[in-house]
């Protein structure tokens, strides 16, 4: 990977690294020429997937961020038990305490795929350059 194309890999992130995860995504979005709104949306969506890994899938995960001419691809991998392949599209009630994280990720980033295998779960998020 070219050192200054905005691409990054974080082999192991924990609760203490979420800011670094967000900064890596924002940097890639900048390099790929995403709009500020698209960048904010991708950063927020990736953060929710990373929070899910930290809070529900063993406390850590890995991140790969790959900007290109057409947009930014982000992969978040964790070794947790897995998650449903299809996310619930029903918005949680305003009074519900939790359950918004992956719903929000899906709302802000329309291209989200989830792949489970014996090594864990890989969530791929793609934000196109428009």
């Amino acid at each position, binding site marked *: 990977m070219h050192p200054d194309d905005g691409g990054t890999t974080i082999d192991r992130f924990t*609760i*203490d690294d*979420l*800011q670094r995860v*967000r900064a890596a995504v924002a940097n890639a979005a900048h390099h790929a020429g995403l709009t500020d709104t698209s960048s*904010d949306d991708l*950063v*927020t969506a990736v*953060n*929710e997937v990373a*929070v899910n890994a*930290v*809070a529900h899938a063993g406390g850590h995960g890995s991140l790969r961020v790959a900007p290109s001419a057409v947009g930014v691809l982000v992969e978040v991998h964790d070794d947790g038990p897995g998650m449903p392949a299809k996310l619930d599209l029903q*918005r*949680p*009630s*305003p*009074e*519900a*305490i*939790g359950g*918004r*994280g992956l*719903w*929000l990720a899906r*709302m*802000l980033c329309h291209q989200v795929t989830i792949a489970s295998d014996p090594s864990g779960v890989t969530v791929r998020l793609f934000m196109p350059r428009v």
Partner: protein
Amino acid sequence: VNLSITTLRTDDATIRLALAGEVDLGGAKPLREAIHGAVRDRTVTSVIVDLDGVTFIDSTGIATLVDGRKLADVCATTFRVDNARDLVRRVLEITGVLTHLSSTSG
């Protein structure tokens, strides 16, 4: 944790929690403690969470605010979230909690 919480007594019975920074998974716990402390204070009848200085909020931060609102309703304390801006406002709108959190009740 990249979140600062300043507790202001704006009058005898009102606490304004002025937040600055990012309300994420790491900031949710200190925010919860600050909100619960303010709401449970028997001399306080009104708690305002001021998001003016907040640049980022995630679902755990939202959960903390909704939880604060719920506790305030139980304690008959007025609770309101104020000054959500830009991305923070948009995320609160998309998740459908902005009206719930911005309206004064107690």
